[in-house]
């Protein structure tokens, strides 16, 4: 029933009308961003149409391993998450903060960032919704607000997707961040392929989501559609290959700053910073001051940074965290412990990217397990 907009209702869209949905979003002035295949991985970039989606592809992931393989079906969203996260659009890897001109013996500072385009994210997983919510707290929840982040965030349209399978390194269930998207979206899709039928069950999450759905051919959902969603979520949940026990996790890590496990993981860690680049909640940046050849014009740029670099903690002629051990410990303790004191919840959403993209396959869930086990070993091997 095209034209009926009911907030928070459940509907269905035929797979062949997915393009209509994207068109309806574009018509509202949004640029579409979503998963697409580049250099052998599913990354996030501009989407022009459904043809850009990795239809019929899936990813096989494990510690330090990532491979794309063909599916038996033509699912549009039959994979999990890749090396990109949505933070690349909300907190661009490079961003000019201001320009400064030296003239008449003074300084003139011009901060005139152009208004960012309205972004629509297509295919946001539940873990990623939670990651965005965590970044919201960092950049807009404190005494200061990051205006660039806020501008992009305010104009955001989110089409979430409930995962139809768990990725090889996923552990959102144990982190309580998925696999079902429960809030923070304008529309949430669950892809259902049942024999010949291929459709999406759509949950409306906002007024503008309802408007967009109104422009797309859709039907009210039937009880069998609700059932299909539940079954898919249950199946995905049961497939999780790993879990992290978060009980008293903050205190566990605070108790174990000098645990020998840090030395062990440090002997493997290359401090390559991959984990921080792929992590959807890592937010650290640095600033770079430059001048042009005339020496009259300067600029300040903000760029992504990583606590794994030697310079990150540089002060007074040396780095506070000089050893790889201290830097790995900083990253993991921040993500799982100090983040709780800073922002009220754990900074990890269980997406598994850091495990997949670590060249030596360090597994954050395994590291937690090892420290926990050493305190009170459970029975059995």
């Amino acid at each position, binding site marked *: 029933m095209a034209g009926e907009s009911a907030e928070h209702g459940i509907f269905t869209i035929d797979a062949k009308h997915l393009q209509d949905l994207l068109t309806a979003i574009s018509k509202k002035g949004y640029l579409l961003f979503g998963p697409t295949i580049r250099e052998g991985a599913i990354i996030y970039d501009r989407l022009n149409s459904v043809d850009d989606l990795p239809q019929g592809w899936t990813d096989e992931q494990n510690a330090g391993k990532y491979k794309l393989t063909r599916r038996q079906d033509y699912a549009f969203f039959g994979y999990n998450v890749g090396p990109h996260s949505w933070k690349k659009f909300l907190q661009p890897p490079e961003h000019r903060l201001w320009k*400064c001109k030296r003239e008449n013996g*003074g300084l003139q500072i011009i901060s005139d960032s152009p208004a960012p385009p309205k972004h629509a994210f297509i295919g946001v997983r539940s873990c990623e919704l939670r990651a965005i919510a965590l970044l919201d707290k960092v950049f807009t929840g404190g005494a200061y607000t990051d205006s660039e982040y806020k501008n992009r965030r305010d104009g955001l349209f989110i089409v979430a997707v409930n995962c139809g399978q768990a990725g090889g390194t996923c552990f959102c269930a144990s982190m309580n961040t998925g696999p079902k998207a429960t809030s923070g979206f304008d529309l949430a899709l669950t892809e259902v392929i049942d024999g010949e039928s291929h459709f999406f069950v759509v949950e409306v999450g906002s007024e503008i989501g309802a408007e967009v759905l109104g422009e797309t051919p859709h039907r009210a959902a039937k009880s069998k559609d609700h059932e299909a969603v539940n079954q898919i979520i249950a199946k995905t949940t049961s497939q999780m290959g790993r879990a992290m026990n978060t009980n008293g996790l903050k205190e566990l890590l605070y108790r174990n700053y000098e645990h020998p496990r840090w030395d062990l993981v440090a002997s493997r860690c290359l401090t390559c910073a991959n984990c921080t680049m792929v992590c959807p909640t890592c937010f650290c940046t640095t600033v770079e001051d430059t001048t042009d050849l005339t020496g009259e014009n300067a600029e300040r740029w903000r760029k992504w940074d990583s606590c794994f670099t030697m310079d990150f903690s540089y002060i007074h002629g040396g780095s506070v965290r000089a050893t790889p051990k201290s830097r790995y410990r900083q990253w993991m303790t921040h993500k799982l412990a100090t983040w709780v004191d800073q922002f009220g919840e754990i900074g990890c959403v269980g997406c598994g990217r850091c495990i997949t993209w670590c060249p030596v396959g360090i597994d954050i869930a395994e590291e937690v397990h090892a420290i926990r086990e050493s305190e009170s070993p459970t029975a059995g091997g």
Partner: protein
Amino acid sequence: MAHMLEMPTISGLAADPMVPVPHRIERVKRETHDTFTLELMPANGIGLPSFGPGQFNMLYVFGVGEVPISISSDPRHCPGLEHTTRVVGTVTKAMGALKRGDVIGVRGPFGTSWPVAEEPGRDFLIVAGGIGLAPLRPALYQLMKNREKYRKIVLLYGARAPEDILYRHELERWRGKFDLEIQVTVDRGSSGWRGNVGVVTTLVGRAPFDPTNTMALVCGPEVMMRFAIMELQKRGMTTERVFLSMERNMKCAVGFCGHCQYGPTFICKDGPVFRFDRIQSIFGRAEI
């Protein structure tokens, strides 16, 4: 009877904290061979909000970079500002080469303050090491401005050598004018120096203060603060009355870049002034 002891206070959120405000250098004062003080005034009629003692600004040298420097002036002189800086890297070296009339960018004020205004009726013990005296100077100004509100005020100040003593004339003036006990010591003496020689921590043991009614403000290199706090605890000071100022790498000063994290705290917004019990569990830990 338990007193409601205040945590350090935040004052003055800047208008747009990411954009520097041009300030003109009114005067450059050479304090020692590697330390100088810049006296600044707004260059375009726009000043920064008033600051609390212990807060810092980010000072931008055109085209070179930015550094966090504690404000070391009297808050009453706002929008005028003073920053005492040591040459330790690229930006401070460039800053040290600037002259009267040059313009730099200033962002701030940021961070927490020494709890001076909130603690009338107390003794104040100030322990400063090296350039650590600079962020404490505004606290001293504030204490002296309302001298009658406080009881004993003791300043213990350690410098590297006699020629490295900061604010010499001011110290003499304070000694004479206000009811303020000042003890200065140097790590190494020089011919003609007839004062204390030895680390400032050795002065704490016999300093005249009542540990049951004193606020201790400590600032200097981390090792010095560690030993000073140990001496304070030996004298019976409890950790909720000891305040110190911490330092880490900073880029944004507003809690976004992540560089200044110290355990669960961001030094730019939860510090730099901390009540000691808040960071006691990680203080002194290697590589935190």
